[in-house]
């Protein structure tokens, strides 16, 4: 019998201070820095923005490479098409705006022009999630995963922290075809380091565990790690998997988790309907059904408030993940 692993995955060079005074940086900064690095490395990389360049951090690229930055004004549908046209003549365009506008307002353009035509357009969707805070429901994007993963040819990445956002941005320039990358506005815990591997399409087990698996994306990976640490006290051994690539999903990691741990919880700062948890559920149901629970926004629009207040109000904290874990464990076959 092989020894079952437990605890944080030491091979991934995760941040040493996850559980104690963890540093916090917005994921959008990772996009900004990644884009500048790409600008130096590849002259074909260009950036577009629709009057939100400071907010999305596209401004950092614009300041370094003004000749390769296209400000389109408040016209997201036009921006999606311009990006496709740039891709058609050999550029690697990164367009950026809030997720509600890129994947929502310009959805038909994303579908028919970009995805159907399989143009090499990178769609940086900022201000994802409830943690946008005070701006309220109109600007809190809770649907990007659903709106983009439904499209053929489209790929979707939801990075967990600053470093992963930077790596995902850089990696996406080398992956052909349209990709939606989701970033957040608020400072969130930096749980990885520069040395942590990022491989597009590959889930990483951040914490080994054998009783139950939490699949998480974005800042919810941190919440999942906190939940796992807390449950350790009760003798519950939680596996935490960072599923940064939401499409294509690492199906093997999901099926292995179902077989090995027999219960699954998903965690996303997004609508659970048609979102990340639903994507995982599709794989589980078809391959190896086990008790599941999805943590996320349950069929309601966001509202104004402090990010922390909202994460509590919308049941997106580690304590909510713990409740979900206890629920699936109570249903798990002995």
């Amino acid at each position, binding site marked *: 019998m092989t020894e079952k692993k437990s605890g944080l995955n030491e091979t991934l060079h995760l941040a040493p201070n996850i559980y104690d005074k963890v540093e916090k940086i917005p994921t959008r900064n990772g996009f900004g820095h990644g884009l500048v690095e790409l600008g130096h490395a590849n002259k074909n990389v*260009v950036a577009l923005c629709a009057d939100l360049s400071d907010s999305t951090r596209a401004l950092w690229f614009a300041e370094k490479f003004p*000749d*390769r930055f*296209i400000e*389109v*004004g408040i*016209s997201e*549908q*036009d*921006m*999606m*098409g*311009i*990006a*496709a*046209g*740039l*891709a*058609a*003549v*050999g*550029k690697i*365009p990164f367009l950026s705006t809030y997720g509600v506008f890129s994947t929502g307002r310009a959805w*038909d*353009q994303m*579908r*028919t*022009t970009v995805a*159907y*035509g*399989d143009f090499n357009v990178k769609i940086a969707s900022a201000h994802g999630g409830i943690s946008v805070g005070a701006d309220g429901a109109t600007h809190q994007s809770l649907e990007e995963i659903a709106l983009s993963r439904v499209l053929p040819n489209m790929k979707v990445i939801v990075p967990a922290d600053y470093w992963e956002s930077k790596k995902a941005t850089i990696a996406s320039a080398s992956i052909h075809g349209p990709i939606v990358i989701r970033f957040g506005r608020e400072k969130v815990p930096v749980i990885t380091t520069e040395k942590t591997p990022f491989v597009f399409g590959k889930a990483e087990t951040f914490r080994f565990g054998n009783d139950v698996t939490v699949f998480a994306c974005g800042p919810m990976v941190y919440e999942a790690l906190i939940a796992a640490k807390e449950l350790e006290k009760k003798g519950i051994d939680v596996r935490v998997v960072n599923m940064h690539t939401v499409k294509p999903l690492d199906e093997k990691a999901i099926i292995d988790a179902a077989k090995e741990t027999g219960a699954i919880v998903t965690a996303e700062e997004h609508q659970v309907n048609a979102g990340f948890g639903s994507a995982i559920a599709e794989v589980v149901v078809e391959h190896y059904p086990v008790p599941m629970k999805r943590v996320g926004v349950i069929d309601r629009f966001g509202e104004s408030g402090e990010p922390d207040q909202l994460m509590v109000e919308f049941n997106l904290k580690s304590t909510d993940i713990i409740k979900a874990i206890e629920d699936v464990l109570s249903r798990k076959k002995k």
Partner: protein
Amino acid sequence: MNYSVPDMKKLATEIRKDIIRMTCEAGSGHPGGSLSSVEIMVSLYFNVMKHDPKNQAWDDRDRFVLSKGHVCPVLYASLARRGYFPPEELMTLRKFGSRLQGHPHRLKLSCLETSSGSLGQGLSIASGMAIGLRMDKKSPRVYCLMGDGELQEGQVWEAAMTGAHYKLDNLCGIVDVNGLQIDGRTSDVKNLEPLADKWKAFGWHTIEVDGHNVEALISAFREAERTKGKPTVILAKTVKGKGVSFMENKAEWHGKPPSKEEAAKALKELGETC
């Protein structure tokens, strides 16, 4: 290679026959707006545009974006008659397994620059091409064909602002002003006039031309090439269903194919000799 005007006039008739045969064989499709765009397409593909059917991926080719994707029969016929693929393939339009999808799809037919069908999106794509080509100091020009009804889509005007703001003088829009859309006359459905004033106000060099006069069209395209510092739009006044008496100026022929009898009548009018 530039074709002569008499040759292009003959080609226009051949392409009209292709459109009738294709849509009749398919049992669906959009003959009305295809017939109104024939001279525009012939002028571009047989005279104005720099391109090479034998070297389709030529980096310096001029780009053509069909924004009103439903008139792909005229695009397919023009490409086939220009040597991009055998004209016999035109009869596969809209059939299962065909490269000639009901609306154009670039991944099926590699000589297409874009996929289109949802209206109002082409001018944005064309703007992006124009910006990218200029960034690389490349000389190709970008052409985008729109319908007049299509101009009711707001995105067109977003793109119109972009073209003028970025002074895209390598971009040329063409509007097939046939005055009809599915639900009737554009002036009744949602009035577009004063159309030339609108484009001028948006900062475009605006040329109004008889859209069935090949010489006038070519002259307008040359004027567009000479116009610096702003994009050009050519408002081509046309007749929907042009060349087939019973289809002319009738909105009902927007998206209805001719029956076999109607096709035979149309082909006879177009001078088919059996």
